[in-house]
């Protein structure tokens, strides 16, 4: 009698490849996603560049920071070192996500506009790929591949950065400011992952709007999505004395974070060190309320709106005849 054996990890990747290769729809979708990274190289060059710069930064700076001699004892407390370690993990991701937002904005505005501008849409349309699948691949890149890819690259950066700092501290026999703490690491990563998932769902309507603008506007989509809303806000305020659009945008900007009770969680996590107070990210993770964010109806209405935008962009691409 044969006994079931676990599939070796190395066999899983070829199995996935075979599965994609044998399913024409999956294969087409996979190819369309690859195409986005061929065409828009900033999608992978930018995060890798940020990673490279941060790692070069790790070589130039070091974990054995100058410590005020009056409170050095507190800074060298292992618990504080762990909090600082978590903060460093979080802080290192910030450049990644700032660059990601910038890159994604330009990508989404360009993804359906560039092919009309250079008439290559006629080549794309000569292939048996529907407009829905094309738009879906682009939105998948903007909403899933790039954000989660950035998360992975940021995670690798965190690990390498910490390893470089640790190595340099050991080699220079200097006291380390940060201390590896597996629980703190996991909680920090979990909180950032959660934040990323909520951000994707909450900010998805912006992706939808950018894709529609890219598919529909005849020229200068960047101007249309920046200057025009600004003019509408000013016009609304001057003419009617109202601020509906600015309120809506402000709500879509930070409206979800209140549901997580983020502010009290941050305040509650503050730990005094000498004359400073530092937030403990693992402690924030223990205190945030995740449920209310996912039961916020506006979050799911935004997701529906994004899907509608995807549908509209596909229709625009299908019936637009300006080649």
């Amino acid at each position: 009698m044969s006994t079931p054996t676990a599939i070796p990890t190395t066999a899983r990747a070829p199995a996935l490849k075979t599965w994609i290769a044998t399913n024409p729809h999956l294969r087409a979708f996979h190819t369309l996603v690859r195409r986005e990274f061929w065409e828009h190289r900033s999608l992978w060059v930018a995060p890798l560049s940020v990673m490279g710069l941060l790692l070069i930064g790790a070589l130039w700076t070091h974990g054995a920071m100058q410590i005020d001699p009056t409170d050095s004892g507190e800074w060298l407390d292992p618990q504080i070192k762990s909090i600082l370690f978590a903060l460093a993990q979080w802080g290192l991701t910030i450049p990644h996500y700032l660059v990601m937002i910038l890159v994604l904005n330009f990508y989404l505005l360009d993804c359906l506009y560039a092919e009309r501008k250079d008439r290559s849409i006629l080549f794309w349309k000569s292939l048996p790929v529907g407009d829905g699948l094309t738009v879906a691949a682009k939105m998948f890149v903007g909403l899933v591949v790039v954000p989660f890819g950035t998360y992975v690259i940021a995670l690798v950066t965190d690990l390498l950065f910490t390893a470089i700092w640790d190595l340099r501290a050991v080699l220079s026999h200097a006291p380390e400011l940060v201390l590896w703490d597996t629980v703190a690491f996991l909680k920090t990563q979990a909180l950032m992952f959660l934040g990323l998932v909520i951000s994707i769902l909450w900010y998805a309507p912006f992706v939808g709007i950018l894709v529609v603008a890219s598919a529909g506007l005849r020229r200068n989509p960047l101007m249309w999505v920046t200057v025009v809303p600004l003019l509408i806000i000013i016009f609304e305020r001057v003419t009617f004395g109202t601020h509906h659009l600015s309120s809506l945008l402000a709500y879509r900007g930070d409206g979800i974070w209140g549901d997580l009770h983020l502010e009290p969680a941050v305040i509650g996590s503050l730990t005094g060190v000498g004359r400073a107070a530092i937030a403990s990210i693992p402690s924030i993770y223990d205190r945030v309320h995740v449920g209310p964010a996912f039961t916020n109806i506006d979050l799911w209405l935004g997701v529906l709106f994004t899907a509608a935008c995807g549908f509209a962009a596909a229709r625009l691409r299908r019936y637009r005849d300006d080649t």
Partner: protein
Amino acid sequence: MTAVIEARGLRKLYHTSPALEDVSFTVGSGRIVGLIGPNGAGKTTALKAILGLTHFQGELRVLGLDPRSRRDELMRDVSFIADVAVLPRWLRVSQALDLVEGVHTRFNRARATEFLRRTDIRMRSRVRELSKGMVTQLHLALTLAIDARLLVLDEPTLGLDLLYRRQFYDTLLNDYFDKERTILVTTHQVEEIENLFTDVLFIKHGRVVLDSSVESLADRYLQVTVTPDNVTRAQAFLPFYEREVFGRVVMIFEGRTAAELAPLGELRTPSIADLFVAKMEKAA
């Protein structure tokens, strides 16, 4: 003959000016059809309608499907080259092969690679690094490696030198065309490829002014280089076109027999280019 394209009463307005007006034609399987007309005649609009790329009124069936509602399905059996400049400039040659292989179940990569091996195109090159002629070769390699039933070409050799133009059509005939396949091509360079066509469709101001197989053109049209003393007699046979060439008058007649016209001068079947000019000037 199985109909690959059946168009009945196609109409299309751009703003207020008509691009297609009551256009009807049928294209059979295994034919090479030249859709010929001057700039702005409606050729590209007709092709766009066939490819489901534009709105229009009227009835249209391509391979039995309505391109308006079943475009995605249709494109599995139809290939087209819009013109030489539409391949994305950032695309590498190897990526182009990966791409078409990834999305087209009827793409034969080995065939495209073999075709490219006969050219100077390198796999690592990007489209923007290739000459216009090489871009055409690449596009042709991708297109000919697709086992499609209908190939649509819209001015595929525009802007290319004679060498590349000749090579393009030679490849098309030798490596691609067979009785199972149909090619619909628009071009300005009628003289160069008129021997290629099995059928011609002349279009002017959005209307079809001639729809004929090339073999029946000889039965319908005759060109006579009329000797000066026979001009008045020849005009009595109501030529639909006449012009003076080196002091002699060339006339084209429709529906006349060789026996009627032979006494008037030198008789021959007009070339497609001559007929095109005649039809266009008549319809003007």
